[in-house]
């Protein structure tokens, strides 16, 4: 396994989920109006990614990978095409758990997320984390670090975007650009900034 710090920062900054890979943009744009809500969302995403990527790694390695069922007497079985359904099932269960915990202990955050929390199940960033884990053939420890790193990257990006949008609340924008339009332009500029991390990693 490569250096965990390198994996973490690679996932957080170079392969930033929303800004470089365009993953999880729906929630990224829809929930970035206020910094405190964005922070809650970022933490939830980090938590879910940090849990589901290693969990799915275990599921994939033990049950779905080609030849993984050799212990059950069928070494030729390749169930890897079922990974989508398996991963979604694990993610849905974890998200449900978090929703129940938030509802019980942090009703304010729960109220702030509103209808968006069930959407975390279908957040592209979270499923993509597990799919990239398979594509890049990560081990258990590496996948945990990767999940946390990409979650932290999402949190960083969404809090930054929310902070900029909060400052822009008083700006006199053209009517058509208000809200979604300017958010795209801001995300584009942040994406330009994050592109410099790719240069740093290349050196």
């Amino acid at each position, binding site marked *: 396994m490569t250096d965990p710090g390198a994996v973490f920062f690679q996932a957080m900054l170079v392969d930033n989920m929303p800004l470089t890979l365009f993953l999880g943009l729906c929630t990224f744009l829809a929930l970035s109006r206020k910094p405190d809500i964005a922070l809650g969302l970022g933490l939830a995403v980090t938590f879910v990614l940090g849990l589901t990527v290693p969990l799915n790694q275990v599921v994939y390695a033990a049950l779905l990978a080609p030849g993984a069922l050799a212990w059950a007497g069928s070494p030729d079985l390749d169930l890897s095409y079922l990974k989508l359904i398996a991963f979604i099932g694990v993610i849905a269960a974890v998200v449900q758990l978090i929703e129940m915990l938030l509802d019980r202990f942090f009703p304010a955050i729960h109220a702030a997320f509103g209808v968006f929390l069930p959407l975390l199940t279908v957040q592209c960033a979270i499923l993509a984390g597990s799919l990239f884990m398979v594509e890049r053939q990560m081990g258990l420890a590496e996948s945990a670090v990767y999940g946390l790193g990409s979650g932290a990257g999402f949190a960083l990006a969404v809090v930054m975007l929310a902070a900029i949008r909060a400052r822009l609340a008083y700006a*006199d924008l053209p009517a058509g650009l208000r809200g979604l339009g300017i958010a795209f332009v801001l995300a584009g500029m942040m994406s330009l900034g994050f592109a410099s991390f790719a240069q740093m990693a290349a050196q």
Partner: protein
Amino acid sequence: MAARLWQVLTDPLVRQNPVTLQILGICSALAVTTALDTALTMAVSLTVVVVLAAGIVSAIRRFIPSTIRLIVQIIVVASLVIVIDQVLQAYFFEISKRLSVFVSLITTNCLVLGRTESFARNNPPLPSMIDALGNGLGYSLVLIVIGATRELFGAGSLMGVQILPTVDQGGWFTPLGLMLLAPSAFFLLGGLVWAIRSARPEQAEAAEHVAPAVAEAGR
């Protein structure tokens, strides 16, 4: 009835466009649009999935208990996506490699779940499928516009065919490398949103804070 169906079909093209107005399905709309052929493949795949998913969910809508409806819908969608993914790998291997995980990510495309959850769950199969088709086409429209722009200006070609002769090949066109990078997709979509909302002012969002009227006496 026919008029209503027509409206259900055409509404999502521009007036209620899923990407630019409803903020649904943006992730894939940006990631796969560096070239027109990947954008088209993605658009067709998504349209097929959303139409079939809406039809199936709508056909079994009376049998789904509302507490587990999300799980049921996701499993329907995921099964369809697996089929599409296998078909692409079998017949369009080159493109499916370039699309990487993004075909699988149709599963979590909020557009698909948004349509099954908000429309197909409460309507008979035919209107549901037409509504899904309209939304799929609205999504495709955005993908094609952005994909064509990025490939034309980023590489001087469309569908891999050279349109603008680049400098490397003795022509006059210097490719805009930025168009193939991530930021340009954001700028283009932002610009598209701006253009649509300028043409249709009723879509513009209300200002969060209205500037108070300032007395002009000091000037």
